[in-house]
């Protein structure tokens, strides 16, 4: 049994690595519409995917910090932001009023069943991913300390300089 697992893992790694793309699983828009997660990106533009929950203070701080800078970042680099809420049915119905009550003006989707969370191997929130304009995963980061958004912006700038 263990040997089979080892062999299969080896085979998979031999098959070669490509940079990760956004996987295609079902997530829900706040108006109830289901969409495939790979359709969240805008071709030709870098994309930030940030996992959060209404009960996660550092997540809310991170999104507020990104939100405060987003307009400027977008002018400079064209970057898009999608926030993926992992709130379950205890709080998922609160996400839309929570977002508008903070004046957040970016795309938010619901991942109540954790399909996207598992597909991207997220353990704890906040967890933030950065994809380049071709849709390749270039960077990911977990937890949030005040000022972390500066590192994120550096990574976005590096992409657009290339």
């Amino acid at each position: 049994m263990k040997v089979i697992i080892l062999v299969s893992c080896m085979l998979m790694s031999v098959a070669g690595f490509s940079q990760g793309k956004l996987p295609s699983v079902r997530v829900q828009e706040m108006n109830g519409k289901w969409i495939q997660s790979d359709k969240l990106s805008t071709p030709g533009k870098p994309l930030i995917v940030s996992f959060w929950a209404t009960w996660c203070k550092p997540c809310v701080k991170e999104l507020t910090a990104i939100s405060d800078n987003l307009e400027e970042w977008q002018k400079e680099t064209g970057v898009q932001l999608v926030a993926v809420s992992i709130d379950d049915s205890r709080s998922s119905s609160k996400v839309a009023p929570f977002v508008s009550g903070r004046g957040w003006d970016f795309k938010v989707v619901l991942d109540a069943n954790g399909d996207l969370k598992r597909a991207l191997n997220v353990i704890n929130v906040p967890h933030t991913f950065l994809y380049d304009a071709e849709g390749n995963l270039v960077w990911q980061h977990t937890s949030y300390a005040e000022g972390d958004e500066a590192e994120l912006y550096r990574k976005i700038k590096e992409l657009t300089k290339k």
Partner: protein
Amino acid sequence: MKRRILTIIVLIGSVATFAQTTGHLSGNFQLDAQLYRTDSLIGAPKVDEKLLSNSYANFRYDFGKFSAGLRYEGYLNTLQGIDPKYDGVGVPYLFADYQTEDLGFTVGSFYEQFGSGLLLRSWEDKNLGVDNSINGVRVRSTPIKGIRITGLIGKQRQYFSLGKGLVRAFDGEISLNELIKSWNEKTTRLTLGGSFVSKYQKDEDPVYKLPENVGGWAPRIQLNRGGFSLSGEYARKVNDPSADNNFIYKPGEAMLLNASYSVNRLGINVTAKRVDNMSYRSDRAENLNKLLINYLPAISKNQIYSLMNIYPYSSQSKGEMGIQAELSYQLKRGSKIGGKYGTQVSLNFSAANSIVKNAINDTTPIGANGTLGYSSPFFKVGKDVYFRDLNIEISRKFSPKFKAILMGQHLKYNQLVMEGKGGMVKASVAVADLTWKPTDEQALRVELQGLWTKQDKGNWAMILAEYSISPHWFFAITDQWNYGNSDVGKRVHYIYGSIAYVRNANRIQFSSGKQREGILCVGGVCRNVPAMNGLTVSITSSF
């Protein structure tokens, strides 16, 4: 089964090799290890092994529309507070999956949620020791644009094997806006759905004649128009005598209704819930978090601050009625009271009571085993208070360097119903969370918290100081002081320190000190975390 899945994984792996195309391997790793010290004062028990650890590693391979993965889990031996029956190592989670937009199937382990989960939700939370994944087959299809169906059959995970019962489930959802062409662009959106779930477990009871097949169904609706949203789900199951309901033959039901309104800078949300005898497991003899098929969300606010979490609400599957209302508002930036950098206000109220239970006749006591149990009028609220929580949160950024969050809470907590001990606890909690950012990279955050109550363990005070240097370092020290305990000898300082280092998606944390006994809850599910004195190492990594 396991062998078959492995064969599929190997096959996919080798196809990828021969085709010279590239797939993507990713995964994560998590380790929590604790070194325990006995501390009879706070009730930290003697741990014979001294060192315990839980570890998990997921590997996942994506190749076009295919994905396959597995999870290693090691409990050497299981951390305190998680069921020690996990002791050991294994690969309890293996799956292969093929998904296109109109057809998908999964073999092996999977997680699924129908509607809000009142009838079916399989999920995992490692901190709670919950994993009721279904191992079997799932098919998803979108035969026509706007119609989605899901069917599944399988058995639920129990430790490193599978539970006794069989779960069969079907769900259908119609999005009228996608189905009807002329509705495509309408701002009003209507979605209807329904699910049917049935479990099978052999009747081996010497006394009762138990139903072997227990079916349940749940219709649901969601309506959106502009900023308005209305949703509701009603679930009902046939009689299902179990250890949870003292073997009564009464059918179970649950209802969840939600209305919300969102416009720029304002959000309002109201939720109502009724639950009556709605525990639904694939093994009628099980208890706690084991082999649950459905999920009954607690509809109180998920509090974050430590002292607000001493008395958390958890769902009562035997019966409860509750309501929650929340308002979030952002004061206009640049206005006189809003300030230059904005002020945020949230107001939240939740309440939960018992349901009314009437005797079915003059001779049968309420809830007597082997009977219909009781009757309960649907719209009548019981008079026992289970929970009340009224809280307000104001957060304001005063300058680019200084932010503050102030929070006040008043709660009532029926400890007898929640924990089976004590009585009604009435408590008030106040929190000040202050952040000072002297430079772009450094921040000092201080939390001051107080809890005042005349019941249970009395008053608490807490201070936390956290210093962070972006993007790598966190240092924190906390003191929770039970200064109001009526037993003078138990007025303990729970001092706890931690250091964490983060690089990209890798994090390592060392912590040391005393942690109080408490209840850790996610959603409506809670577990009791025993008091601890010792050293903890936590590593998480995603790749």
